[in-house]
């Protein structure tokens, strides 16, 4: 089945992404737990195909200040991954790694940015690892880029990247429980359409 846009993904394809999402989540929780030296659980994620405006509204208000970790994929699959972290998530991380708490993003210095970027990177890598294993593909990741900005502004980066091929985004949302406290986990997973087709071919067994 040839997909030209994310909207074309049928239920089988979406189930496949959910499967990858679940496994990736498991990996991410284990890896994070190791980094943060505390129990980390992640709920079974929801995989949604959303329009731009819907995606922003789901995550909050477009002017809300959030942080984002952006990683580019190359190799058998190319595309972009974006992990959105709000202040509460960042504080859970900083509490574990640096034993500190901040009241605003402007208090983030080099150490705080480094720790937050690392967490985003670990989560993204976990998903990519599960994806590459399941599909038996080689995927390379770029060095992560970190930004603190309005939510709407940050979201325009992956949106623009895929604007030529799709009006939709693929989002994996769930809850992350760090040391007993609940924070939202929001990952935008955007393989380009060629890669998505390649993935679907590798993962979805056609039934006669």
């Amino acid at each position, binding site marked *: 089945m040839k997909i030209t846009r994310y909207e074309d993904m049928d239920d089988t394809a979406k189930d496949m992404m959910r499967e990858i999402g679940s496994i990736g989540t498991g990996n991410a929780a284990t890896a994070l737990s190791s980094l943060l030296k505390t129990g980390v659980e992640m709920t079974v994620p929801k995989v949604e195909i959303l329009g731009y405006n819907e995606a922003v509204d789901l995550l909050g208000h477009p002017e809300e200040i959030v942080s984002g970790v952006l990683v580019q994929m190359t190799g058998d699959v190319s595309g972009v991954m974006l992990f959105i972290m709000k202040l509460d998530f960042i504080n859970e991380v900083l509490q574990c790694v640096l034993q500190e708490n901040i009241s605003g993003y402007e208090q983030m210095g080099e150490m705080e940015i480094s720790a937050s970027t690392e967490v985003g990177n670990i989560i993204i890598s976990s998903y990519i690892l599960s994806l590459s294993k399941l599909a038996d593909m080689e995927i390379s990741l770029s060095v992560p880029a970190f930004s603190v900005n*309005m939510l*709407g502004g940050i979201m325009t980066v992956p949106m623009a990247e895929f604007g030529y091929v799709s009006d939709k985004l693929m989002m994996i949302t769930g809850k992350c429980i760090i040391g007993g406290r609940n924070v939202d986990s929001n990952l935008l997973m955007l393989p380009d359409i060629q890669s998505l087709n390649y993935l679907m071919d590798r993962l979805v067994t056609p039934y006669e």
Partner: protein
Amino acid sequence: MNKEIKVGIADMKIARREGVLITYALGSCIGISLYDPAIKLAALLHIMLPEAGSMSDMNVFKFADTGIHEMLRKMGAFGGVKRRYQCKIAGGAKMFDMKGAGGIGNIGERNIRSVEAIMMAEQIRILKKDVGLNYARTMLVDAEDGSVKIRTAGRPEIIL
């Protein structure tokens, strides 16, 4: 009382005499406002990409070229006269510092250049612009007088 009319991403709205057109968090996107003071006609367009290319079935307001052309057409239909238009633009920022360059890092810059080129071809002078750098902007256009305000986090509001 001024009603706020929201312009989403890849969207365009027109207001006449009253209302404030608002579009949030322009990152690499560009907000383009055109105002005809003679008839108090205001339009605000929020584009994402520099040009439509071969895409024919997509939302025209996503791209600078098709978006601006459609905006001009609509304004004309409402009685707008091109040579009277006051044009102001905002956005085109670089949200992430991508090491190793590539297209994704400089989409904001490409958008700015595309909008400037299209306006020049349309013979519409861009009066003011607040573009580039690395932060997102919210843009407001008041249909009553065509004034444009830019709101950013942690900085005072500016009037373009």
